[in-house]
């Protein structure tokens, strides 16, 4: 399996290493650095690299590379999943403050994912239904591709060994689901009910995907006009955002990010709403829009300054859009009820819905 693990930060310092068998010299990371140099962008470093004697399988999370050294034939997904779990644990442990309060304690229990003897004074169970829309919209505004990636995250603080059943108004929506191991698969197959003894604390209960095109509503539209004049050092930029199928809810937290072509020197724009920044180094334009009020649609217009003498850019920048809609699961998924068995107390229960943009791209 994994022979050694190196943690490397963005500036290339190996600041932590762990060896399970024998010590593998840090120099093995040189192959990784080589690949990193070739990739130009940190995100483009290939996750599996072969070196004369080892394989390096790495992930990139929160500006850190987790590089594992492998010597035998292994399932790479096993390693990658494991590395993500290591990253999760670090995040959990270091959290917002520097070092967490307690060291993890393992306790024997019949249920591997739940420790025994859990006790709370306030017993509560909260579920967040979070849906993200991944979409590619083409120049003319029609949808090339759209799907919903949904998750139900749970925060369960219940004493003892509660046995929960969560049912939906419209479980048929869920045809492609990945479950937390605690869920009883048979019950789901036969009754479409999520029945489980939950782990203690925060965890992801299920993730699901809704892909049939007609079920995926696209809540916003973008009108855009980005053009560069031939043989001149300027161009025009004009985008407007409006609500489309928003189910009567407010769309908020809108941000538009655009990677402008390299020849763009600067942008001189006026937003009708919110504020914008343009980073001349990375060429990233970010427009923080806020929320849409249908009476006056937010827009951002102005001029683009190009490097003089450079040819007109060939590529058209794609717009990356972020937004949020509270109290709505865009797929229409609704929780029906939550029942608890096995314990006597009455828990507080709550469900929250939110829809966000995932990888939501508009081509221009």
């Amino acid at each position, binding site marked *: 399996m994994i022979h050694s693990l190196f943690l490397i930060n963005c500036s290339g310092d190996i600041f932590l290493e762990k060896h399970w*068998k024998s010590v593998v010299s840090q120099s093995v990371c040189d192959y990784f650095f080589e690949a990193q140099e070739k990739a130009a962008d940190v995100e483009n470093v290939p996750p599996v690299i072969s070196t004369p004697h080892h394989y390096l399988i790495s992930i990139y999370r929160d500006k850190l590379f987790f590089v594992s050294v492998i010597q035998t*034939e292994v399932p790479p*997904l096993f390693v990658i999943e494991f590395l993500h779990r290591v990253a999760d644990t670090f995040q959990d442990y270091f959290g917002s403050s520097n070092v967490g309060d307690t060291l993890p304690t393992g*306790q024997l229990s019949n249920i591997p994912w739940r420790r025994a003897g859990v006790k709370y004074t306030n017993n509560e169970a909260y579920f967040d239904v979070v849906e993200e829309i991944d979409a590619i919209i083409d120049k003319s505004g029609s949808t090339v591709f759209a799907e919903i990636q949904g998750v139900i995250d749970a925060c369960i603080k219940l004493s003892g060994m509660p046995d929960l059943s969560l049912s939906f108004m419209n479980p048929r929506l869920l045809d492609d689901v990945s479950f937390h191991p605690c869920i009883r698969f048979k019950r789901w197959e036969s009754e479409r009910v999520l029945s489980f003894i939950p782990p203690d604390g925060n965890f992801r209960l299920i993730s699901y*995907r809704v892909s049939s095109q007609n079920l995926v509503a696209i809540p916003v539209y973008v009108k855009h006009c980005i053009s560069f004049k031939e043989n001149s050092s300027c161009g025009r930029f004009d985008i407007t955002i409006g609500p489309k199928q928003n189910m009567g809810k407010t769309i908020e937290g809108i941000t538009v990010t655009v990677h402008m072509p390299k020849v763009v020197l600067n942008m001189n724009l006026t937003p009708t709403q919110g504020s914008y920044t343009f980073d001349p180094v990375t060429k990233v334009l970010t427009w923080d829009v806020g929320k849409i009020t249908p009476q006056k649609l937010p827009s951002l217009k102005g001029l683009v300054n190009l490097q003089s003498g450079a040819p007109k850019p*060939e590529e058209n920048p794609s717009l990356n859009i972020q937004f949020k809609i509270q109290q709505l699961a865009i797929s229409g998924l609704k929780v029906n009820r939550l029942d608890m068995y096995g314990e006597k107390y009455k828990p507080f229960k709550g469900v929250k819905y939110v829809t966000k943009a995932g990888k939501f791209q508009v081509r221009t």
Partner: protein
Amino acid sequence: MTDSKYFTTTKKGEIFELKAELNSDKKEKKKEAVKKVIASMTVGKDVSALFPDVVNCMQTDNLELKKLVYLYLMNYAKSQPDMAIMAVNTFVKDCEDPNPLIRALAVRTMGCIRVDKITEYLCEPLRKCLKDEDPYVRKTAAVCVAKLHDINAQLVEDQGFLDTLKDLISDSNPMVVANAVAALSEIAESHPSSNLLDLNPQSINKLLTALNECTEWGQIFILDCLANYTPKDDREAQSICERVTPRLSHANSAVVLSAVKVLMKFMEMLSKDLDYYGTLLKKLAPPLVTLLSAEPELQYVALRNINLIVQKRPEILKHEMKVFFVKYNDPIYVKLEKLDIMIRLASQANIAQVLAELKEYATEVDVDFVRKAVRAIGRCAIKVEQSAERCVSTLLDLIQTKVNYVVQEAIVVIKDIFRKYPNKYESVIATLCENLDSLDEPEARAAMIWIVGEYAERIDNADELLESFLEGFHDESTQVQLQLLTAIVKLFLKKPTETQELVQQVLSLATQDSDNPDLRDRGYIYWRLLSTDPVAAKEVVLAEKPLISEETDLIEPTLLDELICYIGTLASVYHKPPSAFVEGGRGVVHKSLPPRTASSESTESPETAPAGAPSGDQPDVIPTQGDLLGDLLNLDLGPPVSGPPLATSSVQMGAVDLLGGGLDSLMGDEPEGIGGPNFVAPSAATVPANLGASMGSGLSDLFDLTSGVGTLSGSYVAPKAVWLPAMKAKGLEISGTFTRQVGSISMDLQLTNKALQVMTDFAIQFNRNSFGLAPAAPLQIHAPLSPNQTVEISLPLNTVGSVMKMEPLNNLQVAVKNNIDVFYFSTLYPLHILFVEDGKMDRQMFLATWKDIPNENEAQFQIRDCPLNAEAVSSRLQSSNIFTVAKRNVEGQDMLYQSLKLTNGIWVLAELRIQPGNPSFTDLELSLKCRAPEVSQHVYQAYETILKN
């Protein structure tokens, strides 16, 4: 209170202070001190001086403190082995602690301390822990065995831990089962030949039960282990599939992919008619798609695997094209993989969408990606004929952008499109020529030159264009030079009058001023061709070219099948079998998909479509290169000489000797490879006189051509064996063998009279048999056979007799009569006497047939200990009418694709895998495909006989 404060003490004399604190009486203080020590150790300070003091703290019932001390021990035991011994007693004691957590912790830590001296003490506690009443301890101990094995394999074997571990596979606790499997898999990796994980239906059941309840990591091990099992029939395969399917909904992508592997592998055994087969196909798509919404690293591995899956079973994802559309901020490694899969999934139904996407990608920023997108458009044109026109116009649009690398890629792919669809899109040549000057990459220049040369008659200024390239001839890369040479020769042959000077120039550049042997050789060949026979030159140079294959980048089927068995592993990422890249050169264990074996109840109609056969729209794999030379030689020889009807007159003994001897001496002069040993032994060489003469006269010419000539020589002939012992036939002993020579089969008999009376009136008759073998002439023995006399005779056979299927297939029942009685005997004839001389299949035909024959008709065999290389094998087989259609080298192995035809018209196709250059591995692997699979076994025997003699 947080733990961070432990990391902040940096006072002087720290070690001294810590020492005091560690030896304090107060428990709290001790614990604090150990925490400080661990903190120092973690940030890399040397606190090994405190070893004895820390170890002293080990004897505590506080679990937290104990864990910390163990942590310290694991870190420093290696550098202080002598001191670590001091801790052994405590470990041994802890292994008997009433608290199972402590027992497990102790055995775990001991396994992590990689010090030889300690491992000796580990054995007894480990043995106890493996049989502990608490499952938590047992599962920890199971892993510990693997750790110990890594340190000292011999010790583990001597102590019998492997058997205990095997027993744990039947443990009642799923976690224990999972860990036992994990440990055994890890150990098995260093002992590939061991049968540590031999599974039977009972243990499979245990594993499947444990699968539902163990941790996600355990599930991966169990699934990977299941994938190595071969179910006994389709029912068992289906029931395993049913129990594995729920894993597809697991949140851990590695679990999902391992489950996919098991299903893909066992599906091979299911009949396509089963409803369940369809259900399973449907169930596979969503989890694969879901993998694509995970983190990019996971996506990458998933995509590499999906690439294999869509090649094996394109139907699974054929409706999911859109999920492979590229997002502009995907990492480049994901983009390139998605693009590859898009092309594999492209079909007439979705081509419009795909093209629109590809066009979009061609305007992106990343150069590598743009190039690949342009190439993809070309591949679509070649793959989906209906889209070719649209692809060409898209490529023209892209050329208009004048972006340099886009134009160059476009020209390279347009060349391929011309080769696939000749005389269709040549109207675009003018547009291409406009961009001549902007081409600076060798591949694009070579492509353009090829186009100019190929279509010289349609391009008015072709000579000027080519001349312009000629100016900097020596600065061009070889690829361009070769192309330029050919193009100008083509031009000359098309427009000889105006271009004589040009061709002179290029020929002298290529032959006189170049250091490159390829270029020089090609130049000389053209020169001589042109000077000796311009007409022939025209025929050769301007010959009609075969259309290019639909796709050349598909993985070769045998390799694909093997890789399917490795889904989810590094092999699946590299698309190479592990033997090709895993270090250590362990014994090569090739995995292969299970053959289809139906359970006795399920009757299958022979029309059943094969489970593994690619669906109709899957493109072919054309073996590249191949043995073109062989083809040419065979062509020259014309159709194989078919045997003229045998002379009915008997062959006199004297004549036989003469001919046989003459033939032998003729052949003796020839170098090896014509098949000296394969030739019929003189005593059996009973070639009819007229044929012998014609052979003799033709021999000297023909034999100059070496190989190819194999058709003329005879098949291998086994030494004569006694068929009818004298005891059973009142003194008549018959021994014999079968031969095949130049199209005629004969039975060479040796009759010995061991009785005391003279034998006369011989006659012979065959019973009906599988291939209709019958004597073509009566058994003619003129003189009576006196006591102790022996006569040799060759009985010509034909295959027009009546047919009846025999068991075994090659059984021949014979009756021999003489003046005394009638005697019966039966013999088995080697199948290769039935291999006919025109058994060489055309290459295209071969591919089509191979695809066409259902997979369940494929049989696999091993020919052991055959240290021959591909050429030797090929020529030896050819002399017995097994013809090599193509040869290729894959991952250092030679693959021979061969065909043969039986007298009754049955074709048998073969794939023979040879590992040259590996003297320790001399086994050949043979796959046979035939519409009448019952002959496979006998064909295999023929192979073995031919190759081993």
